[in-house]
C-alpha cells in the first residue's frame, strides 16, 4: 500500500501545536510506518520551493496550525490548499483565531506601534519601524507584512475539518489521525478530535447548582477550593460554553477553563453564550446590585472571546469584506506588495 503523504505547517502560532504533535510520543513511530511527512518546517528541513514543485493535490492531508496574520501566512495557505486533498485547520489559531486574534481589538497598526515604541523593554532611540521592504546596496530585503486583521484559516481558503484546542490534546489528535489513516473521516465541514457536549460534562468538580456570584475574581486573587465548581467560587470559567474534548484539563489543575476548544455544536458565538451564562449566575435583586457584579468583570472581550474573536460575530461587525485582506497602514508602501495578503 502506498504511504500516506502528510504535511504540517505553522502560520502565526506559538509553536504549541507542533509540540502537541511531538506529544504523540511512540505513536509517531506508528505514524511513520503508514505515512511520509512531506513538509513540516518546525521539525524537518523543507523549503517552500519543495512544496511549490509538487503537483496539485499531491499531499493527502495537511495539518495547518496558526492564524492568518501576514501575507506569508496567506500565501502558504493558498499554496497548501492547492497541493492538499484534505486541509485540516489544526488548533485554536487556525480554527478560530485564538490569542493572536486578540490583536484585532486594537488592530495591527496599534500592535506594531506598541511593539516598536511602547513596550517597557523596548529600547528604540532611532524610532525604527518594521518595514516590509528595505533597500540595501546588495538588493531589496523583504519581510512578511501584517494584514489589518488576524483571520482564521477558513476565512482565507476552504478547509474540510477543524481540530480545536490550544493546543489539541494529543489523545484526540491520535484518534483523528487514525480516522485519517483508516479512511474513516466523516462528512467534511465538522470538527475532529472532540467529545460530545461541553467541558462541564467532563469536569469532576461539584456544582451546588443554586449559588450565585456576588463578585467575580481573577485567578491570581484566590486559591480556589479543589472540589467545588470554579464558577460558583466566582472565577469566570468558560466550561459551560466550551466544546468538550480536552478532558477538563485546566479545571482539574485548579485553573478555570479558558475556552480553547471553541463553541459547542450548533452555537453561533461562544463569547455571547458565555456572557449570558455568566450574567445568569450573578447575584443581584436590583439594577444597582447586578451592575455592581457586572463591573467586577475585568476585560470582557479578553475573557469571553479569548480564543474565538476572529471567528465571532464581532469579527464581521468590525471588518468590512473589502478591508479584511488589506495590508495594515504602517506597512503600506507605494508600489509595494499591496494586495498579497488576500
Amino acid at each position, binding site marked *: 500500500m502506498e504511504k500516506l503523504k502528510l504535511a504540517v505547517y505553522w502560520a502565526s502560532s506559538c509553536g504549541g501545536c507542533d509540540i502537541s504533535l511531538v506529544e504523540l510520543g511512540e505513536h509517531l513511530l506508528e505514524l511513520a510506518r503508514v505515512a511520509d511527512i512531506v513538509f513540516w518546517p518546525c521539525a524537518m528541513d523543507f523549503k517552500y520551493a519543495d512544496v511549490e514543485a509538487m503537483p496539485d493535490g499531491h499531499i493527502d492531508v495537511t495539518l495547518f496550525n496558526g492564524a492568518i496574520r501576514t501575507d506569508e501566512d496567506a500565501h502558504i495557505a493558498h499554496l497548501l490548499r492547492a497541493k492538499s486533498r484534505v486541509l485540516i485547520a489544526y488548533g485554536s489559531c487556525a480554527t478560530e483565531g485564538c490569542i493572536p486574534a486578540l490583536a484585532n481589538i486594537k488592530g495591527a497598526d496599534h500592535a506594531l506601534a506598541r511593539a516598536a515604541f511602547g513596550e517597557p523593554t523596548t529600547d528604540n532611540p532611532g524610532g525604527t519601524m518594521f518595514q516590509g521592504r528595505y533597500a540595501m546596496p546588495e538588493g531589496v530585503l523583504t519581510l512578511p507584512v501584517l494584514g489589518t486583521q488576524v483571520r482564521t484559516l477558513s476565512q482565507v481558503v476552504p478547509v474540510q475539518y477543524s481540530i480545536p484546542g490550544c493546543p489539541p490534546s494529543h489523545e484526540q489528535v491520535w484518534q483523528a489521525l487514525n480516522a485519517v489513516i483508516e479512511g474513516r473521516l466523516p462528512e467534511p465541514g465538522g470538527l475532529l478530535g472532540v467529545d460530545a457536549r461541553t467541558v462541564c460534562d467532563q469536569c469532576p468538580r461539584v456544582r451546588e447548582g443554586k449559588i450565585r456570584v456576588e463578585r467575580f475574581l481573577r485567578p491570581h486573587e484566590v486559591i480556589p477550593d479543589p472540589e467545588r465548581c470554579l464558577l460558583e467560587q466566582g472565577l469566570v470559567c468558560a466550561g459551560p460554553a466550551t466544546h468538550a474534548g480536552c478532558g477538563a484539563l485546566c479545571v482539574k489543575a485548579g485553573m478555570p477553563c479558558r475556552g480553547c476548544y471553541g463553541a*459547542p455544536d450548533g452555537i453561533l458565538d461562544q463569547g455571547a453564550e458565555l456572557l449570558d451564562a455568566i450574567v445568569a449566575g450573578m447575584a443581584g435583586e436590583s439594577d444597582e446590585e447586578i451592575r455592581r457584579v457586572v463591573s467586577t*468583570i475585568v476585560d470582557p472581550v479578553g475573557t469571553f472571546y479569548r480564543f474565538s474573536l476572529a471567528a465571532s460575530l464581532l469579527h464581521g*461587525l468590525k471588518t468590512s469584506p473589502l478591508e479584511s485582506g488589506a495590508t495594515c497602514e504602517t506597512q503600506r508602501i507605494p508600489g509595494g506588495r499591496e494586495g498579497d495578503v488576500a
Partner: protein
Amino acid sequence: MIRSSELDPGFLQEVMAIPGGENLLHCWSCGTCAATCLVRRYDPSFNPRLILRKAGIGMRQEVLSSREIWLCSACDACYPRCPQEIHISEVMRAIRTIAIRDGYAPPGPSAEVDSALCSGCAVCTRACPYGAIDRVPVIVDGLERMIAQVDPNTCMACGICVAACPSGSISLEAVRNEELLTRMSAGGWLAGQSQPEGGKPRILAFVCQWSMRSDAEWAEVEAMQDDSLRVVNLPCSGRVDPALVLLALAEGADGVLVVGCGEGECHYKRGTYLGRGKVALLRSVLEQTGIGMERVRFVELEALQRGALPALIADMAAALGQPARVSG
C-alpha cells in the same frame, strides 16, 4: 351564587398541608394583593384576593379548574405589601400542586431540556428566578448523567434559562432561538442594507411583553414597523440573547434596543436585572472592540410610562445618527 352544599370544608386544610400553603388561613381578604398585582394590570380577570378567598371557603372544584391559578407569575410584588405577610405566590403554588395531583395541567408551555445535549453545567439552575430547575441523575445512552430537569408547576415560561443555556439544550415553545430568528428576519428585514450616510438608522427592538400595558399600545408600536424598525416581543427582557443581538447587528441592524420593565416591576423577579446586566456587559464588549456601545441600548419602561416606547425608539435613532461605522 355559592351553595354551601357544594363547598369542601377540607380544602383549606388540604392547601395548608402543603409547604407554602400554611398561611392561607391568615388572609383577611383586604385586596392589597390585587391592588399591587402586576399580572392584574395586564389581565383584569386575575385577582389573587378572590382565589385565596374561594380556596379559604372551600370552593375546591371551582378553584382547581380555573385558568387564573396558573396566571400568577410569582413576581412577589404583593408579598412585601401584604399586611398579613402571606407569601401569596407560595399559596398559589400549593393550590397548583393539588391541581396537578388532581389531573389538571398548566395551560401554558414550560421549558424543556434536551438530555442528549445537556452537560449538567448548572447555568440554568442558577439562572431560574424560581428555582424551577434542578439537576437529577438520568440514564442517557446507558450512562448515568446529571441532567437539568424543569418542574412544570414552578416554571413560569419566562425564557431566561433558554437564553442562559450555553449549549442550546433548553427550549421553550414560541421563544426558541429559531422562532425569534424567524421573527427578526421575516420579510427579509435582517438582510436589509445598513442605511447610507444620513439615512434613517435601522433598529431592532426586543420588547418585554409585560412592559407594554395594553393591546392598544402594542398595536401602536407594531404599526410603526417598517424598514427602519423591527419589533420582536419577548416574555421578559431576561430572555434577550446576546448572540441574537450581535447577529442582528452583523446582518444589517444599526442598533438593537432592549426594552424591559421598571425597577421592581419585573414579572419574573429578576428578569429585568439580567436583561440589563447582559446589555451592560455587551456594551463594554462593543466599546472595547471599537464597534461602539451606542449600537445596543437597554431601557426600562415603567408601569406608568404608557405610550413612551415610540419616543425611546426615536431617541435611540437620533443617538445612532451616523449609520454603522467600520473601524480598523
